[in-house]
Structure formats: structure tokens, C-alpha cells
């Protein structure tokens, strides 16, 4: 607009042209999705933009600290945009496909990253991995896409388990169960004491139910079958899948009936207040727990059902991937190298409240007994899975939400539910 002419006709012409330009560049999708946070760009300035969904107060502060540390080192410049999780999730495809995308993103490893990589949207970060020699092979495999290049840099992972309050278990005089039979017996005892044994929060967060499906499936049919199922290579109406629900039905009478009306945050409150006995949840729930309750928390692994099935645990891995269209690949890789280092990961663990395990094996996790127990559980596992949507896709998650909440309400309709689930999944795989 340097040649701006205040004349009316020129002004209108400018307006029209500006309108055309702005609209020509944006796709149908970006026009539809709310534009609360348009992609911010970094052309020319050299600063790497990092788009972060870590919006809970402690995690956000931790990220800000990391970026400040990186900028202080003088190896490059970075700027952080923190975006509400749900907005981030729906906008991510728009960011990645826009003409001038942000450089780096917080997101998940595995199938989700591979999906974007297969569309050539992710930057090849194999260079960064050369400096990450001490990372375990499992994490490298998780970060590698089909053609063999790395597209993801992990920062930390966490675990899922049955969390409970030590003081409450002592008060009720009960112990951690090891097997499914122990578990059902424990539920029966709690129920006889007037406590709903199993907490759940499906109100706004129906995906919480997927943890039950994942765990029962990897305990009964094993992790390889689970992965194939989620990749569309097995069918949801298979008798092996039905066996999962037969077991689940044994535990159904022990679920907190109020759980389907409130979200997992309120289920956390109910657990902490002793209104439910235990809660199958990931460690992120502790973000919503008051500090003084943290010391009283403990967990046990999902009970063993068939000892012959190799032990697998859910250990969702969080980290970063970068846009293939970044204007500054070198700066982006420098930042990724920093983020994969011991110093950055320890700083993140220290600053964030979440109970997480750093991905870098040399970085120290926080030294609480709870974290040590979680780390030991994951180390013992033969296989790690991510979570339903991370092992399949965000697009498949709604089919699971529908099927699982319906099962919890109407367990006797399981055959019809599984048929519908298979039909829904086929549509998603077909596109």
C-alpha cells in the first residue's frame, strides 16, 4: 500500500484487490474453521514460530521458559504461540496445509504423525535424530514414517493406570489387585462399603472410555492385534473384539453411575473426595488435582487377564513435528535439537506439574515415588501402545466414543453396536 492514493475509486479498488488476495490464499477449510488464531508466519525475521497446545498454566509456563532459554543461547530465535487444545486440534490440518505455515508444532507420535507425513506435510528431521543417538530404539521407531525417515522428536511420555488415594485404600482396608479376579473382588468390597468402585468421566470427554477398550484389548488379544484393528486390518465385529466386551461387562456394575454425566476433571474431583474408589486415567489428570493431594496418590497397572499375552502398557508420547513448508528449516532443526537435549527436557519436567517421563534417557525425571513406579511399569512392558486416537486417527475416535458410551448404557446390544462400529470405521478409512 505504499502507492496509496486517497482517491475514492483507487481506495475501492484497493479494497477489492485486498479482499481478493486474502480470499484467494485461504482455502475453503480455513474460511470455515473459526479464525481465532490464523497461522502466524516467520518470513524474513528468522524467528522460528512454535505452535503449542500445552495450554494448562504450568505446562505453558514451562514452554515459555524453554523458549526463553533457547533464545538466550544465541543459536537462533524462536517465538511461542500457545493455543487452546481443542482449537489447536481442529486447526492443525489448516496450519499444515496453509501456504505459509508456522514452523514447529507440539503433537503426538505414531499414527497421527505418520498420517501427515504420508501427505508430505512434515519436515524430515533425520538430521536432528543423528544427535539423538542415546534415545531408545522404540522411540526412534515411533518417530519414523513409512519411507524410513524421522518426522517426529519426542519430548516426554506418560502412563495410564488405576489411580487411587492411599489414605482411602487404607481406610477401606483394601490392597492393589494384580489379576482380573482380584480386581473384581476389590470392586465388590468397595461396593459393599457404599463407594462406587470405578470412577469415569464421559460427560464432555467420552474418549476416556477408550482407555478401557484399549487396555482390555491389549490384555486379552495383545498389542499387535490392537494395532492392526486400529489400522483397519481387523474388524470390530470380530469375535475377538466381542470377547473384550464380555470381560468389560463383568466390571460394568461397579462403574460410578454419575460418571457418564460429568467430564474427567470432575471425575478427578470425585476420586480425590473419596466419592469413587479408583479411576483409570493418564497422569495428565494431576494437572487438575490440588498440590496437597498429589502426595496421597498412587496407582496400579491394569490387571492381568491372560498371563500368556505379552505385557503391554499405554504410554502416549508427546513431542514435536515441523512443517515441510517451513521457511527456516535450519533454525527449526536447531530448536528441535535443543528440545531433544537433556537440559531442555529436565527444565520442562521441573517446571510442569504433570507427572511425565522425559523422552531423553539421560534426562532425570522428577524424583517422586509415583514417577519412579510409573517409569518401572513402562520399563517392564514388552510393548507400548499410544492411545486409541494416536494409534488410529482423530477421525476414528468419534466412532469409538459412540460405540463405547452406547455399550456402557446398553451392554445387551453389543452385537448391533459392534456392527455399527465396523460400518462407521469403514467410512472413516474410506474417507
Amino acid at each position: 500500500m505504499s502507492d496509496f492514493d486517497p482517491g475514492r475509486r483507487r481506495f475501492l479498488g484497493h479494497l477489492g484487490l485486498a479482499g481478493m488476495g486474502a480470499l484467494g490464499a485461504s482455502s475453503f477449510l480455513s474460511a470455515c474453521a473459526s479464525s481465532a488464531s490464523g497461522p502466524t508466519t516467520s518470513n524474513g525475521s528468522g524467528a522460528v514460530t512454535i505452535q503449542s497446545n500445552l495450554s494448562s498454566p504450568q505446562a505453558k509456563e514451562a514452554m515459555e521458559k524453554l523458549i526463553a532459554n533457547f533464545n538466550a543461547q544465541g543459536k537462533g530465535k524462536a517465538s511461542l504461540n500457545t493455543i487452546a487444545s481443542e482449537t489447536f486440534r481442529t486447526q492443525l490440518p489448516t496450519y499444515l496445509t496453509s501456504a505459509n505455515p508456522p514452523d514447529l508444532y507440539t503433537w503426538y507420535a505414531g499414527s497421527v504423525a505418520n498420517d501427515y507425513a504420508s501427505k508430505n506435510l512434515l519436515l524430515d528431521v533425520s538430521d536432528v535424530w543423528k544427535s539423538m543417538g542415546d534415545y531408545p530404539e522404540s522411540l526412534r521407531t515411533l518417530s519414523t514414517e513409512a519411507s524410513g525417515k524421522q518426522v517426529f522428536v519426542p519430548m516426554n511420555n506418560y502412563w495410564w493406570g488405576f489411580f487411587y488415594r492411599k489414605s482411602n485404600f487404607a481406610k477401606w482396608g483394601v490392597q492393589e489387585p494384580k489379576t482380573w479376579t482380584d480386581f473384581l473382588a476389590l470392586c465388590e468390597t468397595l461396593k459393599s462399603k457404599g463407594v462406587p468402585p470405578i470412577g469415569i468421566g464421559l460427560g464432555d470427554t467420552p474418549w476416556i472410555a477408550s482407555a478401557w477398550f484399549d487396555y482390555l484389548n491389549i490384555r486379552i488379544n495383545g498389542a499387535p492385534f490392537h494395532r492392526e484393528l486400529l489400522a483397519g486390518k481387523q474388524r470390530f465385529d470380530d469375535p475377538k473384539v466381542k470377547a473384550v466386551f464380555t470381560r468389560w461387562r463383568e466390571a460394568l456394575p461397579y462403574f460410578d453411575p454419575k460418571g457418564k454425566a460429568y467430564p474427567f476433571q470432575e471425575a478427578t474431583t470425585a476420586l480425590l473426595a473419596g466419592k469413587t474408589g479408583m479411576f483409570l486415567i493418564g497422569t495428565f489428570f494431576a494437572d487438575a488435582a490440588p498440590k496437597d493431594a498429589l502426595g496421597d496418590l498412587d496407582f496400579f497397572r491394569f490387571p492381568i487377564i491372560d498371563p500368556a499375552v505379552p505385557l503391554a502398557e499405554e504410554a502416549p508420547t508427546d513431542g514435536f513435528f515441523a512443517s515441510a513448508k517451513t521457511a527456516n528449516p535450519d533454525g527449526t532443526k536447531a530448536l528441535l535439537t535443543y528440545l531433544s537435549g537433556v537440559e531442555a527436557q529436565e527444565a520442562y519436567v521441573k517446571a510442569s506439574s504433570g507427572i511425565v517421563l522425559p523422552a531423553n534417557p539421560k534426562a532425570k525425571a522428577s524424583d517422586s515415588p509415583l514417577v519412579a513406579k510409573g517409569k518401572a511399569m513402562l520399563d517392564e512392558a514388552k510393548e507400548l501402545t499410544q492411545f486409541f486416537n494416536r494409534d488410529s486417527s482423530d477421525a476414528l475416535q468419534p466412532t469409538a466414543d459412540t460405540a463405547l458410551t452406547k455399550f456402557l448404557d446398553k451392554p445387551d446390544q453389543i452385537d448391533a453396536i459392534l456392527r455399527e462400529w465396523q460400518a462407521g470405521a469403514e467410512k472413516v478409512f474410506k474417507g
Partner: protein
Amino acid sequence: MTATVSTTSVTPTRRRRRSARLSPLLVAFVLVPFAVESIWVFWPALQGFWFSLTRWDGMSPPTFVGTDNYVELTGDATFRGALLNTVIWLVLFGGLSVLGGFGMALVLQKERRGVGFYRAALFTPVVFSLVVTALVWRVFYQPDGIADTLLRAVGLEHLIRPWLADPQTALYAVILPALWRQIGYVMVLFLAGLKAIDPALHEAARMDGANSWQRLRHVTIPQLKGVNAVVLSVIVIDSLRSFDIVWSLTKGGPYHSSELLSTYMYSTAFQSLRLGYASAIAVVIFVLALAVILGYLVRAFREEA
């Protein structure tokens, strides 16, 4: 913009005469918004029709599949459920807000002491955004929340259920807050209509010995014809575009039991990433809205003629 150019190139005498009727400024004020509108509204709408004939995940280029999406719609049980819910919504939400709004307007039309307070109180919910309304009602419906406490207080605790999580009640539990808001709005429209009726008509009817029901039936309602058209269009359009309150209270769940066409379209597009199929649903919504509104307009014109 071509029109402005051509008017400047014609002979001075003609120009003076034409510009008296149609100044270039006026033309620009029509054409510029039209140009912007066509890029911003008409073009995406047409694109929507095109996308409904494709399979598209929002990232890869769309592939043309003909009428596959529409064929799939006919066999989609969730879509049929959403369609039925939209009809229920139209009838209940539309019908009750007209009845409620009209009733309130009748009660509050006479100037009495304190009537302003009641009018303001009934209109207050309209001021809140629907998402805020949803938050308030969520607290109302939550387990052991105000709704449950009220039921317990009057000895109806056997009715207590997870209102928003029970497929039997979810849709109706969502209609209630939508109504709570809409009634105030419709009331204001009717109040304006009632105020515009000439009091002499009522006076004359009273002289003829008409009781209050007869006056309502034969004087008030026929006189409100103009307002009815406005209310009806507002209601139909609001019903078909109802989305925010359902999305913020139940997201169409549990398992699609409170799904409307609008929420199903949104979740198909942005959660399942099936933008082609979602566009087909959008086209259906558009056709429905058009049918209802055209149907009404045709009738209205015929009555006038």
C-alpha cells in the same frame, strides 16, 4: 466497476440525466458489496455443492465421486436420526416459543405498575450468548445439581437421571435452555405487534358484545398477520441453524441421540474429516431451509393477491 467507467464515457447531456437517477457512487455501493459477497458467500456456497460430490479429507485434493455421498445419506441411520431430531426441534422449539412468546406478550401488553420489570426479566436471557447460557444450564443439569435438588425437594427423586447423558432426555434437556432464551425474543416481536393494533377495533368489538376470547380470535390474531410472517421466518431459520447450544451441552451425544443436522454436519466435517460427506449434509440443510421459506413465501403472496 465497469458500470462506473461506462457512465463517464457517454455524452455530457445523457450523463447528467442518468446520474440524476443512478450516481456512480450508488452503483459502487451496490457493486462493491456484491463483489465482496460473491467471493465471500456465493462462491463458497457453490464450492460446497461441488465438494458434496467429492470425497475429501481437507488435506489431499478432493476426488470426484458423483452422487455417492447422497446415496450414502439415504442409508445413514445417524443422518435419519438427526433429521428426525431437527423436525422435533422445529416443532417443539418453534411451536413452544411462538406459544410462549405470544402468551407472555398478551399477559404483559397492558401498562401496569411493574410490568416493565417482568418484560426486562423475560428478555434478559436473549442478551446472554448461547454458550454462556449453556454453561449456566450445565450447572443446572449436573448430577446433584439444581434440577436434581428441586426434584428431591418435591419428592420426585425417582425421576432423577443424568439429564444430558441419558438418550431419552438429552434432546429435550437441550431444547429447554434454547426455549428459555427464544421466548423473550419472540415476546418482544409480538409486543410490538400488539402495540400497533388500533384500540378502536377492540372498542368496537366490545360494543358488539364480543367476549375476550372472541376479541382475541377475531381481532387480535388477524391484526398480527404482519408480525406472524416475521416470527415464522425467525423461528424456522433459528431452528435450522441451531447448533451452538447443542454443541456446548451435549455435542450431539450421547451416541447421536441429540444430534441435529447442523451438529452432525460439523462433527462429520471437523472431527471425522469427511468434508465431502459433510458438504452433502450442508446441501440438504440448505434445501430444507429453502423449501420451508419458499413454501411460506408462495403462500403469503397467494394470500395477498
